């Protein structure tokens, strides 16, 4: 349930910062309001510093039997192609997956329609039988025996 707790903090923060509101996203992407960029930049900076400090004080993960380890990923064509497709959808719908889920959580009907599209898109990609495209999570899940992840869930 630790995953759900972090999710709840994440979702509430997206609501409180207005990131789930299409007007806030539009104002940011049209450079009317620097909030999103300051918010996003400070989040990345905190994560970057925090992750490095974490590696200094701990060598292993707390809930899975794995060392704290990550390696940079090389750029492939799919990263650019996927980001072009994703960015187009984001610009039109003025929401990305986190805010879409939060919209649904708030009971906003438009969000449910966007989510249906997201589910279809993800499902299509899964169906194509493409290999898991998130290497970090793949590495983690292969290191954890299924019984352990059930216990966590």
């Amino acid at each position: 349930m630790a995953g759900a707790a972090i999710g709840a903090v994440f979702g509430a923060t997206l609501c409180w910062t207005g990131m789930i509101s299409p007007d806030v996203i539009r104002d940011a992407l049209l450079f009317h309001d620097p909030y999103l960029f300051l918010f996003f930049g400070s989040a990345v900076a905190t994560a970057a510093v925090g992750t490095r400090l974490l590696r200094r004080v701990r060598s292993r993960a707390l809930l899975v039997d794995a060392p704290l380890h990550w390696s940079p990923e090389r750029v492939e064509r799919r990263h650019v192609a996927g980001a072009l497709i994703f960015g187009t959808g984001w610009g039109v719908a003025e929401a990305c997956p986190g805010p879409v889920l939060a919209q649904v959580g708030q009971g906003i009907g438009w969000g449910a329609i966007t989510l249906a599209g997201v589910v279809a898109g993800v499902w299509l990609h899964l169906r194509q039988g493409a290999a898991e495209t998130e290497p970090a999570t793949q590495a983690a899940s292969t290191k954890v025996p299924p019984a352990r992840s059930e216990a966590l869930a």
Partner: protein
Amino acid sequence: MLHSQLAWYVGGPVLGLCVVAWRALFNSRLGVTGGVSEIIGKLASRSLDFDWRGWFAIGLVAGATAFALVVGGPTFHDYGWLTDTFHGSSRVWIGAILLVSGGLIGYGAKLSGGCTSGNGLSGTSILSPASLVATGTFFATAIVVSFLIEAVV
């Protein structure tokens, strides 16, 4: 207090700490699309045994529900340029546009290995070249698309 936008220098670091906590607990990248994908994959095989990524997505929805309950309703009503542009019976177009955009968001995020959280927050904070390129690409694309929409409608 909850009705006004949380200061970026508070909200950003909270989101960043979610990424750090995720790394500390599970040694993996925190990502919303990964969570959605996990749920879809498990449901497709008729299982409800979600791993922590799936529970993260569920927690995100619950966090937004809790936020809406505390503030007494959804935090926004009009849906950006779409409800500004389409009125009355032509609002059916909004549904169609959001559905297609959602599809692009879901498929594009899977193809590029993450969305705004997986690549944007988690990947960039460990300076993964693929995530840096993907994040730059989808931000630039979303900005261009927003200016195009602004110019046309």
